[in-house]
């Protein structure tokens, strides 16, 4: 019988939530790694019982956990993260140069085909890979050594590599995004990279052709059309139809085009989801109403999805990695809030129900569709 497993990272641990295909009744386990920040938990597409989790505290640093049984038990990996060679420098907030310094792993992206291969996006921005199930990690240094890297600067949340997308059709192609450097693409499995930020416009960057400097919050792809990417930028919702060679704005009638997450319907590649947030200085939903916005036209025309979501006195945020879609016939959409709620829709966003309401602040949400 089919079902789903929702993987939730929070400010104080990880939670695993399972349900059958109806997605009405949920079994919740956790917290795992209580007291640690869990930025991300994600399962292997090649083996759904293989999960990876990134746990971190300012006290004791970074640990990667691995589960071989769908999150029932976990094993801390011994491998650590070290930049390959000289760390080099990036720009600090005041414009001075500062050495790259490893702080944490924001995002884990397991290989599409090999459960033992997994990519990790770091702060300060770098891309790591493990080919032994997370036991050892090696940087793919070409990204951090890109000629633009000395000009990368951190966003307010740190200089994080938060998005990793593996192209299912072009085997050696991958996309990453860094706050606040922008988006990058590799066509040779990470040996070389090029910025893909043409068409992005950002207040504070006077040069419209600037190669880097854009605060990309999240990028999403429907695997059936890997050349089409959707981006929630600091401000502006964007799309590309040519794998990032050029971007155009699709914010349309959104009440605010500031936000963090973005995702694509699993079966309708022109249906996309965002959660507008009032502004970069306030980080709350407009008018105290928690509304997911859906476009069925690939952008520009958006409808508010409110059924089951609080429509008054709601001032939570939804962080960039805290939205996910399953691939059941009736598509499931999931997101978590900084107020500790995890909402699920089993009808592509038409109606919502909370899976749980009182978790620590949610940092990430992923979902696995189980056979």
């Amino acid at each position, binding site marked *: 019988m089919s079902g789903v497993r929702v993987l939730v990272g929070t400010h104080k641990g990880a939670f695993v939530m399972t349900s059958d295909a109806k997605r009405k009744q949920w079994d919740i386990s956790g917290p795992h790694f209580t007291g640690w920040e869990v930025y991300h938990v994600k399962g292997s597409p090649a083996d759904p019982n293989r999960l990876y989790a990134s746990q971190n505290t300012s006290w*004791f640093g970074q640990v990667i956990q691995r589960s071989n049984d769908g999150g029932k038990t976990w094993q801390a990996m011994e491998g650590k993260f070290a930049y390959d060679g000289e760390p080099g420098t990036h720009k600090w907030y005041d414009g001075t140069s500062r050495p790259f310094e490893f702080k944490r792993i924001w995002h884990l992206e397991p290989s599409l085909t090999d459960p033992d291969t997994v990519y990790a996006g770091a702060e300060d921005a770098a891309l790591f890979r493990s080919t032994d199930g997370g036991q050892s990690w090696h940087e793919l240094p070409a990204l951090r050594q890109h000629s633009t890297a000395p000009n990368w600067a951190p966003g307010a949340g740190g200089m994080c590599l938060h998005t990793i997308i593996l192209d299912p059709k072009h085997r050696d192609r991958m996309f990453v995004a860094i706050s606040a450097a922008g988006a990058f693409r590799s066509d040779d499995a990470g040996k070389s990279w090029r910025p893909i930020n043409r068409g992005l416009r950002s207040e504070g960057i006077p040069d419209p052709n600037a190669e880097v400097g854009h605060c990309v919050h999240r990028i999403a792809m429907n695997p059936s059309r890997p050349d089409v990417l959707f981006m929630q930028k600091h401000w502006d919702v964007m799309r590309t139809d040519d794998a990032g060679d050029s971007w155009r704005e699709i914010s349309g009638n959104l009440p605010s085009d500031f936000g963090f997450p973005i995702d694509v319907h699993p079966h309708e590649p022109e249906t996309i989801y965002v959660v507008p947030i009032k502004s970069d200085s306030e980080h709350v939903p407009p008018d105290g109403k928690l509304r997911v916005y859906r476009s069925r036209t690939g952008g520009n025309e958006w409808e508010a999805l409110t059924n089951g979501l609080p429509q008054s006195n709601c001032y939570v945020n939804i962080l960039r990695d805290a939205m996910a879609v399953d691939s059941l016939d009736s598509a499931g959409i999931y997101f978590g809030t900084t107020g500790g709620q995890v909402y699920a829709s089993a009808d592509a966003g038409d109606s919502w129900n909370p899976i749980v309401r009182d978790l620590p602040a949610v940092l990430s949400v992923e979902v696995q569709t189980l056979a």
Partner: protein
Amino acid sequence: MIRVVLPPHLRNLAQVKGEVELEVKGKPTPQSVLDALETRYPVLRGTIRDQTTHERRALVRFFACEQDLSLDPPDRPLPEAVVTGNEPFLIIGAMAGG
């Protein structure tokens, strides 16, 4: 035998309960104790000190015999009471933040 007390998060990570007892070769120092600790529990590498530079993490402190040893040179011999096992070497997560 050197007795080491880990903070709760690191006890969970290393899957130990209570104190850890370590055999340390030569004159015990914070450095040699941590070397022995990380050899026995490799998962603790990087959680107490940087795994490359061996610098103590900023929010980790070392205590023994009611003394703060955090800022001592890592190769300074530990107090005799720690060496004889009468007192533990305490690794503490600094009280900082909520």
